[in-house]
């Protein structure tokens, strides 16, 4: 403190001397404590208002596990039809009718009366007529299940907790990667494999089942597979028109979303700039017109992008144009406001300096004003370009089109979660790429200017 005294102060002495300071600091403690208590009370209220307790009970976390698994794995069904004793064993990817194999995979061995199937992780299933025997690690003995002649399902042998059985149904899921399901009409075995099935080529393609490199090599070694198109071009066209993954459509949707963000922001900043001059105190001395422009900005901003996109969907229909207009309208308001604030804050001396050299009004704007606001103009426009890439996804999902709509479509059908996952990954990649691109451009333009 101020003087170095030889005596040390006792606690009482400190209390007495700095009573005012200490009292204030004690009073200050109540503030954060009170605030924290208030927030806590509010959260409790929210917990009750949103009925969290029943939500926790109702939520389907099993769904999450299955979705998560489905996003990076696919399953192969092995199905024995019990209604038709003569029918051969069916093996198909995801149970799709056309998802057959050209030849049996090596983990399925057909026998006279059924099949022996290796389900992976040490689990094996043997189908004999109407009986299934399941063996695997951690079991004291085999699990046996059969469908009796009258159609009831019964299980004997060991009964681990992952087996669920009643009269009409037998269900076993030793791990997430195997599943056995028996009903009156069929025995169904699922084995999961990590990967995205048919990602490159669908069933109709001559390259089906190959990777990209493999197909390239195959194309080189084969005579022309399809007339009128070279083998290598066929690779691309088959990939592009893949019916399951729809790479072409997804790419088009991505392009739409990027277009929305890019053009929307561009239009907003180009329209916003001249309007911003009208809204700035130092350039528009007429109060009434200034206020009018500002209210227009507030109106455009306040209506919200969501509502604008709904109005434009009615007018222009689905597509990027709708998204562009919605983004342009909202952000003309936002950017106009930001630009007008920047214009009001410019340094007048620079304009005076240019004026003193006998510059015309146009030159005064060009050399006195523009250089001062250009960095802000560029920086803000690019920031908004970044956030509008995200917004374009969102208004797209509400109906404007683009990758957002594609995402909602795949999510609604809820069958091919891996497609959804693929689109999510692409969307995030685009958002991050936009982020990096605009950051790079910003640094480049502003440091060079």
């Amino acid at each position, binding site marked *: 403190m101020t003087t170095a005294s030889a005596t040390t102060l006792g606690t009482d002495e400190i209390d007495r001397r700095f009573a005012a300071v200490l009292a204030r600091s004690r009073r200050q403690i109540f503030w954060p404590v009170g605030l924290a208590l208030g927030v806590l009370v509010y959260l409790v209220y929210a917990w009750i208002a949103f*009925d969290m307790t029943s939500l926790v009970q*109702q939520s389907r976390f099993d769904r999450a596990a299955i979705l998560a698994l489905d996003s990076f794995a696919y399953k192969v069904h092995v199905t024995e039809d019990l209604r038709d004793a003569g029918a051969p064993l069916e093996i198909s990817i995801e149970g799709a009718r056309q998802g057959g194999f050209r030849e049996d995979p090596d983990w399925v061995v057909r026998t006279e009366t059924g099949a022996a199937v290796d389900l992976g992780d040490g689990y094996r299933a043997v189908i004999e007529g109407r009986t299934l025997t399941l063996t695997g690690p951690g079991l004291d003995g085999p699990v046996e299940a059969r469908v009796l002649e009258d159609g009831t399902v019964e299980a004997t042998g060991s009964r681990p907790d992952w087996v669920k059985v009643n009269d009409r149904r037998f269900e076993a899921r030793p791990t997430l990667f195997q599943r056995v399901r028996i009903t009156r009409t069929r025995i169904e075995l699922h084995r999961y494999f990590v990967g995205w099935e048919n990602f490159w080529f669908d069933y109709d393609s001559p390259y089906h089942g190959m990777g990209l490199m493999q197909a390239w090599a195959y194309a080189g070694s084969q005579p022309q597979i399809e007339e009128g198109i070279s083998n290598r071009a066929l690779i691309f066209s088959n990939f592009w028109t893949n019916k399951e993954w729809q790479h072409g459509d997804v790419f088009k949707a991505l392009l739409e979303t990027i277009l929305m963000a890019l053009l929307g922001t561009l239009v907003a900043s180009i329209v916003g700039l001249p309007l911003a001059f009208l809204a700035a105190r130092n350039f528009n001395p007429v109060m009434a017109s200034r206020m009018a422009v500002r209210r227009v900005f507030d109106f455009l901003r306040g209506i919200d992008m969501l509502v604008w996109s709904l109005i434009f969907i*009615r007018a*222009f229909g689905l597509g990027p144009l709708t998204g562009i207009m919605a983004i342009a309208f909202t952000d003309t308001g936002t950017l106009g406001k930001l630009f007008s604030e920047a214009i009001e804050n410019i340094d007048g001396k620079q304009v005076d300096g240019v004026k003193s050299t006998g510059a015309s009004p146009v030159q005064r704007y060009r050399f006195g004003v523009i250089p001062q606001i250009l960095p802000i103009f560029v920086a803000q426009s690019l920031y908004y370009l970044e956030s509008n890439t*995200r917004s374009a996804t969102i208004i797209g999902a509400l109906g404007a089109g683009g990758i957002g709509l594609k995402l909602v479509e795949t999510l609604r059908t809820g069958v091919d979660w891996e497609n959804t996952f693929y689109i999510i990954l692409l969307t995030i990649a685009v958002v991050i790429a936009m982020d990096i691109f605009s950051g790079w451009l910003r640094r480049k333009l502003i440091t060079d200017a």
Partner: protein
Amino acid sequence: MTATSPGDHAPRMIDQIDQEFGKAERKRRLYTALFIAATLFVMVGGFGIAEDMNSGSFIGGLHKFFDYPANIVAESFEAGWGWYPLLLHFAPALIETVNMAAVGTILGGVLALVLAFCSTRGLGVWPPLIPICRRFMDGARAFPELILALFLIFVLGASPVPAIIAVAFHTAGALGKQFSEVNENIDRGPLDGLAAAGANWTQRMRYGVLPQVLPNYTSYLLMRFEINIRASAILGFVGAGGIGQELRKAIGWTQGAETSALFVLLFLAIVAIDQISSTLRRRLTGDGVGHV
């Protein structure tokens, strides 16, 4: 610039400068022209593509632009005095949306606070944690809220909670980045002083950092709250409840009066919160803050 020795003749120097300047000027002009050309190209080309991709055309849709708002206004006038009670009728939905945004902002804000402290150098945090927290925040920011909300609605069922979690997650990333930028810019003096007086880590943070960062934190938090109200309204549209869901119903069933009541309510709420928070922010920090 070329180096010139003091012995050079003045006229030559001016010539040289003139030449250099001309070169730089020409280069600059070229870049400007290129930039403008590129912008024009993107505009014209982009609008061409957009027009092609769109299901309705621009010119064809232009006259329809006012149809929908006109319809809504007409139907609202038809409703007459019955329109005003609608505002009251939908007030609970608005409150739910505001609550969603508030809870999301609070939870996200707490997470952001932790992340911000963990991603700032020089605050005595375990160093390997810094890049991990930064990458996490980048990811949380880039992830569109809508996707997370849709996924959570699938798992948790249609209720406001998925929206809250989605909003909180995005908020943690966005606010965390702003918070950590504030942290980076603090004056280290008080920290050194406290360390010299023997203060422990908590005390250093409490008395050295918090007083410096709190005004900016609050300001950013309010701004995020504002953004989150819009986000919550939008998420309601995909089934998360609140005013968005009511709006979707009203639009889907083409109930003009209800739609306009909801628009007005949403507009008023956004403007009111905009005004309140910008007044508060100005008082806290003296001027506006940037945008992320």
